[in-house]
């Protein structure tokens, strides 16, 4: 391999450098073209870090800084506003309804796509990705068209005393739609890698389909599911576009935390907006942290 060859492959070397650590680095520096390569590697590392910083680090840090620049008291006052508290609990309520729904649905879809034996499985996989492809605003509008007061199903529902749009059911539907694929998409590859032998073994041992699922399949795919749940939770918490349309943004009634943040921002209440945004960010951190703790504890308990 010549020096120019090495330079050409340097990007991939830089990517793996972190993982292989000193061993990979040692091998590279023993080579004549090592100086150029290590300079490249450093440059790439800075580029990656800079990108992350500009995109994620700086804005998040700024939010925290702006929120707490006048101390804790104004922040506390802002987040204990009745409308803020209501928005907080409404968001939690939506997550509490949507996440279990989508988890059950996602696992079912993953099993159907990966274990089922029927025509149209590929089509089902394609449909599953729709929520990723369609803009949430479109989802919100579509829901209004179907379930709104003058909508296709909505007029019938309204005449029977059920209100979907501008109330919880519509918001649940919108949130469920946009966070639909996560559990299935995280679970499918794990199911595929697991294979069917353990499940067949369970069947020959006399286990019913449910017993096999609960005792063999589910424990084996649990990390895929947990990761899917975390992503679903994060997406459901942060959903703005679709919910913004179907909720009608009624203060203290159908205003979720992200909608509340935008409302405060538009009304020139910087402190209120930043404080609520920080609460939203902290909720997301807590979700991620919870998963990591769970992962560590389970790893200690079982050697898999």
């Amino acid at each position, binding site marked *: 391999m010549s020096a120019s060859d090495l330079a050409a492959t340097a990007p991939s070397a830089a990517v793996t450098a972190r993982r292989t650590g000193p061993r990979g680095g040692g091998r590279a520096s023993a080579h004549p073209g090592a100086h150029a390569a290590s300079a490249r590697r450093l440059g790439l590392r800075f580029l990656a870090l800079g990108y992350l910083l500009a995109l994620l680090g700086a804005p998040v840090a700024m939010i925290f800084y702006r929120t707490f620049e006048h101390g804790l008291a104004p922040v506390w006052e802002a987040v204990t506003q009745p409308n803020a508290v209501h928005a907080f609990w409404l968001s939690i309520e939506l997550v509490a309804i949507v996440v279990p729904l989508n988890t059950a649905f996602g696992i079912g879809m993953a099993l159907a796509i990966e274990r089922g034996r029927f025509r149209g499985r590929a089509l089902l996989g394609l449909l599953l990705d729709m929520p990723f492809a369609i803009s949430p605003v479109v989802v919100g509008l579509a829901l209004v068209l179907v379930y709104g007061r003058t909508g296709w199903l909505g007029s019938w529902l309204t005449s029977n005393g059920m209100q979907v749009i501008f109330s919880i059911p519509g918001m649940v539907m919108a949130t469920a739609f946009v966070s639909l694929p996560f559990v299935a998409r995280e679970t499918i590859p794990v199911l595929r890698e697991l294979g069917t032998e*353990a499940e067949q*073994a369970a069947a*020959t041992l*006399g*286990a019913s389909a449910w017993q096999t699922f609960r*005792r063999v399949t589910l424990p084996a795919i649990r990390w895929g599911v947990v990761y899917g749940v975390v992503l679903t939770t994060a997406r459901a918490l942060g959903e703005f576009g679709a919910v913004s349309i179907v909720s009608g943004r009624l203060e203290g009634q159908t205003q979720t935390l992200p909608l509340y943040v935008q409302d405060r921002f538009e009304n020139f209440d910087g402190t209120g907006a930043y404080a609520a945004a920080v609460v939203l960010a902290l909720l997301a951190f807590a979700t991620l942290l919870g998963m990591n703790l769970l992962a560590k504890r389970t790893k200690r308990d079982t*050697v898999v």
Partner: protein
Amino acid sequence: MAIEVQDVTKRFGSFTALDEVSVRVPDGALMALLGPSGSGKSTLLRVIAGLETPDAGSVRIGGQELTDAPARTRGVGFVFQHYAPFKHMTVHDNVAFGLLVRKASKAQIDARVGELLELVRLDGLAKRYPSQLSGGQLQRMALARALAPEPQVLLLDEPFGALDVKVRAELREWLRRLHEEIHVTTIFVTHDQEEAMDVAGQIVVMNAGRIEQTGTPHELYEHPANEFVMSFVGPVNRLGDALLRPHDIQILRGGSDLYSEQSTVEALVRRVAHLGFEVRVELTLPDGRDVWAQVTRETAAELELAEGQILTARLPAPRVFAAA
């Protein structure tokens, strides 16, 4: 319990894995399904277990028609080639699984699991996880797990395929003794003729989705029904249409003019390979065809075999099978 498979056909797309296969396994037998890969032997085993549904034909176990019964109701113990361990469960919990799903009491489960782990010599490893076991230990755990619900029939798919030679020989011996002890009707699949002959009382030889022959190891070796069986159950030399076993070729000192029999022919020693007890002698016959003979160490020493030597080979009456 006896297993009866009647005219079973199984297709996967355009590939016919089983073509009207019928087998009868007597109660308490230890039978081997022997054949090359793709011969349909694993598919047959999976049809008996209920893991595959045949396109035609029937499966009966203990006289009961089970063709469409789900696997879990068949009372069949199945050991998978790669053991299919429940990786998130301990050895104890793996073995206990079949009892747990039958809602046995904890005391019953613990007693039976303890008994089985002793039987497969894994007592003391009950709290380990599958990832902490060797291949041979995993194999024995899989066997204990399959035996726990007291199956009527035990089916093993290439049970020793993934193990190294030494462990394989040990487990072979051990499976035979286990079968003598518990007498459950057992079928195991293998592509290794020596393994089949060593372990099983009855062997079913399969090829291309059909059964070529069924018999004891002795019957198959001495009276193969066709060319496939003869060449699959032991080494052969092929001389045109004729097949002969290398150990049936006798090597005699000196040129063939010393012998008057018709079956003797002059042979040139091309190569002598010492493989421990047996010595493999590669010969070229006067018409240019190559054969190899298997002789004992003693015979080789007596004849002072060396490359380039000219000797006499006495060929056995060759077997010629009608073209299939």
